[in-house]
């Protein structure tokens, strides 16, 4: 539903070669229109009762998992690390957002009912709460990231796993230390107003995907990608690896916190036990299944893996078996994930149609060479000689 947010920009393609391309404002306009169309159609369907409350609830959860998967993708797919503590950031964001909103409701004169009717004060409180949740998670990400990112591979996985467990235990026991009720301890934080609905989930998902996408296509994003491809080479080119690793990690934590904030409002209860190791793995599975480094892959696999257990309710007893079999099959036949590192671009599809199905490299090989001018893009700017051959890594202008 949000596939439209990814627009890759073949920056160097000159019009003189005969390839007709869209200008950047037009690309943004196309994507913005698509998002609004999806939003309006979705909202109308829910208001009209075409989509039931049960389905709406599942759609909200899909949105939450999309943000989680895409945000983890920043650290795994784009930065190339393997953190196992994503659920920890999600819980920090969820708790801080829920506590912030619950405490501020009285001060701002917002009642639980206002969230359903959508008064301006409630909307403002929602926005503040979500940002607060994200910032708290980002702070945790910073605290954890600075020491953790000195390590690589398995060591980083273990240290992030450990930190996530610390977060969980802190949530469980902080009340006793503080001497007043903050998180509700083991029984969890209850009575969270239901501030999450289709409309605000959709908007938050769209904004998050837009921010993550533009960040990864920016100069900073390319620096992050260069660290994934070869850290030593990146460093020798003048990329401040420590800074960019921490930046990517903190951004990843921020969006996990945002998703956690939405989750708290969607479910109404936060219990520390639910944010253990398994939750982190669940999110990691979504990223790996979709393809590391592919935003569309994360979106699709988050959607599929959230719908699958619900769609299989009809075969209740066997549904977890089917879920597991799907994962095994994908890993046997597509070990690089559903989409590998392919990313979808609506604008690119339109351009292909405008050029009668031809690709940019069919026009002017010179264009691709010109693109190689930026050092960070060097690793991906070498187009495959034979377009469309069956090697999985297709001749798409991925960067």
């Amino acid at each position, binding site marked *: 539903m949000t596939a439209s947010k990814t627009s890759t920009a073949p920056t160097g393609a000159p019009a003189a070669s005969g390839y007709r391309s869209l200008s950047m404002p037009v690309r943004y306009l196309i994507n913005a229109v698509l998002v609004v169309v999806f939003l309006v159609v979705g909202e109308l369907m829910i208001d009209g009762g075409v989509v*039931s409350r049960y389905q709406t609830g599942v759609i909200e959860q899909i949105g939450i998992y999309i943000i989680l998967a895409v945000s983890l993708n920043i650290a795994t797919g784009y930065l190339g690390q393997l953190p196992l503590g994503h659920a920890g950031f999600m819980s920090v964001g969820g708790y801080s957002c829920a506590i912030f909103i619950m405490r501020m409701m009285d001060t701002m004169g917002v009642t639980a009912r206002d969230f359903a009717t959508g008064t301006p004060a409630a909307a403002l409180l929602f926005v503040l709460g979500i940002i607060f949740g994200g910032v708290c998670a980002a702070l945790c990400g910073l605290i954890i990231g600075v020491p953790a990112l000195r390590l690589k591979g398995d060591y980083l996985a273990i240290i992030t796993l450990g930190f996530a467990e610390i977060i969980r235990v802190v949530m469980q026991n902080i009340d006793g230390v503080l001497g007043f009720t903050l998180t509700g301890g083991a029984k969890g934080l209850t*009575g969270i107003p239901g501030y999450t609905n289709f409309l605000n989930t959709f908007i938050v998902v769209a904004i998050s995907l837009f921010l993550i996408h533009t960040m990864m296509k920016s100069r900073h994003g390319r620096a992050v990608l260069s660290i994934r491809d070869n850290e030593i080479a990146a460093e020798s080119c003048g990329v401040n690896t420590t800074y960019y690793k921490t930046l990517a990690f903190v951004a990843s934590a921020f969006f996990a916190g945002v998703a956690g904030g939405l989750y708290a409002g969607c479910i109404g209860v936060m219990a520390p036990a639910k944010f253990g190791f398994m939750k982190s793995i669940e999110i990691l599975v979504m990223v790996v299944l979709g393809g590391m480094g592919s935003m569309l892959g994360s979106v699709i696999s988050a959607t599929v893996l959230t719908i699958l257990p619900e769609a299989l309710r009809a075969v209740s007893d066997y549904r977890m078996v089917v879920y597991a079999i799907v994962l095994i099959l994908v890993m046997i036949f597509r070990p690089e994930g559903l989409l590998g590192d392919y990313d979808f671009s609506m604008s690119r599809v339109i351009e292909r149609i405008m050029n009668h199905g031809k690709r940019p490299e069919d026009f002017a090989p010179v264009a691709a060479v010109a693109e190689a001018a930026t050092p960070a893009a060097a690793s991906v700017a070498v187009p495959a000689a034979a377009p469309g051959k069956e090697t999985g890594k297709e001749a798409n202008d991925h960067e």
Partner: protein
Amino acid sequence: MNTNISRRNFVKAGAVAGMGLGLAACGGNSGSSSDTIKVGLMGPYTGDVAQYGLACRYGAELYVKQVNDKGGINGKQVELDTQDEKGDATEAVNVYNKLVEDGVVGIIGDVTSTPTIAVAQASVKDNMPCVTPSATAADVISYGNNYFRACITDPYQGRLMADFVADQGYKTVGVIYNQGGDYEQGVADAFTEEAGKKGVNVSDSEGYPSGATDFNSQLTNIIATKPDAIFSPNYYQDDGKIVTQARKLGYTGVFLGADGWSNIVGGDEEYASAEDLEGCYYDCSFVAENEDEKVQDFIKAYKDEYNDTPSNFCALGYDAAMILLNAIETVEKDGKAAYGSDDYKQAVVDAIASGTAQGVTGDISYSGTGDPVKSTLIITFKDGAQEVFKTVEGE
């Protein structure tokens, strides 16, 4: 790896499989006719806490079967819509929304506390009559008037055992509990508070993290304070280890527990030996050794159906179904409200609040809240068998 297939082929195959699944899922929807009464039953039937969910489910299904065998309610058969929530709050909310969509007029569930609270919060706006067999957290019933429980609460058990300690004349008591569990913490906190009021000295209160298997350090600290009794309000797997390890450390006094102790003997596994448990007490609503006629009838029916001895959770599931179906029967006989309407739901809620169910865990009635007024049994161990020590009437 030559098994790798291309993205395009894979996506195509996936799309075909997905459409097939989607169609299969749609096909499973059958409309309910007006001569049945549709009741939701939810709980964890897979996952970590599946044993409790399944036990409640068997109990509830047995009662529904008995009602249907007798001709149903007002000539209508009761149809159960059973849904698994895996012990997860997210899934529980989904299940609740699905049950509402399926058109149930009442729900038996949920089973564990956190998912039940999530469902309770969601159910308030529909005023859906719900009876949870076993969610003991205080919050469950605090969101609206539509939520009821068949079991006694954690704080009530804590107070009950503290009063029992005072009656037994124990002067100093140590407490050991799982810090990571809402149930254990809830009982232990209420116990400590009430014990203080009754003038019983809680000499040492030790928490341990979830999943611990070695309790020696906590027990050594507690035993050093020379308590008359040790209160261990945890689940039976932990309690068994605690009792065994304390006996090895030379502690000879009494152990006290809450209803998490049921199943500590008589199950497939021995969690603590008969000698170690001799003379210990715990409170519970149901024990198979109860001589009461209702209880023995239930045990017989359960054995005939499942060829197994029912646990506390089975009995609570049975009673929760009884509470809800009794109320629905009252409303159906009254015949004023149209089936499935808002008035109907309100009438069921009112009928539960004012009715009494002759349950196998005691006579259950409600006095203005969703907490039951019911008797509780204090159970003791004698020669390796359990027996009812005394019955404490409800407040």
